[in-house]
């Protein structure tokens, strides 16, 4: 599994082979990420989502959670992982400080990925932006290009 730290929410100064950023959208949040692998790309986008509204640098780690996300396509798998983050935040008061994604498996039409989150207590996080509540299918992207994998999502805040 590939692990990405989410504690440092800053964008890289120059575009490296992996990273993330948010781009303007009138009322909501539009986030983009890039990485050499699809799994890395999803991890970066989780980083972008969490970093947009919570600073976990001083947050207390409370444990690990694992889940399997199922979807009909790679973009929908991406939405599923982001939705898991939002769900855990609302229900358990936890946000991922780090995550590891297993290899994406299954055929087109039935994709799956295992995700392991290292969770922080939201009560100890610093709020830095509007809290996300849902992931839109509008402009949802995850795909491979000549420079590696890229992905993007529009998130309701």
């Amino acid at each position, binding site marked *: 599994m590939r692990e990405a730290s989410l504690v440092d929410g800053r964008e890289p100064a120059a575009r490296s082979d992996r990273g993330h950023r*948010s781009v303007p959208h009138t009322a909501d949040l539009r986030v983009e990420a890039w990485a050499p692998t699809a799994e890395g790309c999803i991890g970066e986008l989780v980083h972008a989502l969490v970093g947009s509204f919570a600073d976990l640098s001083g947050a207390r780690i409370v444990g690990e959670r694992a889940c399997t996300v199922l979807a009909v396509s790679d973009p929908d798998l991406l939405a599923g992982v982001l939705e898991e983050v939002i769900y855990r935040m609302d229900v358990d008061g936890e946000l991922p400080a780090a995550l590891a994604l297993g290899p994406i498996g299954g055929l087109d039409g039935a994709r799956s990925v295992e995700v392991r989150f290292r969770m922080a207590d939201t009560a100890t996080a610093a709020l830095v932006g509007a809290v996300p509540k849902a992931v839109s299918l509008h402009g949802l992207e995850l795909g491979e290009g000549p420079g590696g994998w890229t992905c993007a999502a529009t998130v309701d805040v």
Partner: protein
Amino acid sequence: MSEVEIVLVEAGRYRWRIEQRPPMRVPGVVFANGALLPQAAGDHALEQVANVATLPGIVRASYAMPDVHWGYGFPIGGVAATDVGQGGVVSPGGVGFDISCGVRLLAAGVDRDELDAERIRRLMDLLDRTVPRGLGRGGLWHLSGPEELDELLLGGARYAVEHGHGVPRDLERCEDRGVLAGAAPGEVSNRAVERGLQQVGSLGSANHFLEVQAVDRVHDPETAAAFGLRTGQVCVMIHCGSRGLGHQICTDHVRAMDRELHHYRIELPDRQLACTPVDSPRGRAYLGAMTAAANYGRANRQLLSEAARRAFATALGVGLELVYDVSHNLAKLETHEVDGVPRKLCVHRKGATRALPPGDPDLPADLTGAGQPVLVPGTMGTASYVMVGLPGNEAFRSACHGAGRVWSRHQALRTVRGEHLKGELEARGIAVRPALMRALAEETPEAYKDVDAVAAVTEAAGLARQVARLVPLGVCKG
């Protein structure tokens, strides 16, 4: 699928038509003046109005209110009606994630000239401490479990009042008397239930707020009196919705409809427009779940009203009377005449307010002669409006829902610092209690259209008439 071509034609004062081009089934109609028309580079609101015009069963036009702005799938400020008997669809994206997001206005038994800065500061400090908002602070009402949540999803604001959170008169002044019939808690997923259990009585974040206001100007004294408003009166405006529960219901049903589009051979220009015939098992399931979320939203605003009442009683020794409670994210089955024939329509209002004219049987008895209050929140630095429904509204009796955003959150943050904005507002006598400074900056008044212009164009376009203008005294931002 091919992109929809946008051909915009001025079709009267404050009325623009987007010509019907394939695959649009009806034209688009935008109510705006030149300044309010979405035209910034990269703003896709007009394209979204045209995309909505492709929905199966849509009738008359895809409408955009004067506060229209770029959303996803539907524009914010959009109205679309589909003919149920002609295979018309329901689209959860046409309601929005925040089902039954809406506005509630309460009038206080005190005038602004009776309040000095110290009394307002004390009131705002109390509201700041008692109104849950932002990240992970839970709600005011701790439900016993999923069974009690089911009762709330069926009973809405009425359930809250029956359990001591308000008075029976409140229900008379709520749209649908505080509870929408037809809720189906069985169509609400476990995830939605889990998210909803802990959030009854919470504002949320982003553009949601609880604002203390004063009536600055009365445009129509007779209607204002019927609503219970007079010049100088202190009011409370609450803007929030159905929290995580509503968002999860929308997510669940959009996903399901997206997967089933091919069953009905529906092709769409945007996945977030996912839809299904109203008269289908999935359509009925969504409407049942949406109605449950609508009732949650009304109960949520009822609980926040109770918190406001406590704060007013403690800090000022006065009560709060409900003026009205309206949803601006909802789909309703309504009968309207289309080409001279009464039709059962599914009217989607996403960022638009129902605006019933005087005499409508759905109005509370004491507002039958006046018409329905249309609540139009502006910004924390400018103004908000109370308007009233008019006869002859072509957009299925709909009006605007706010000022309408023009800036992205990025642009707001690049332009404004939260601390500076807070100082500026405080210097103008507006007490600001933000959940955090960055969120305050994101909601800077400059990020929105001119609400005075939105209200004036709404009136000039025949959608609703101005009754009163309200100005902010203090703001609790989500």
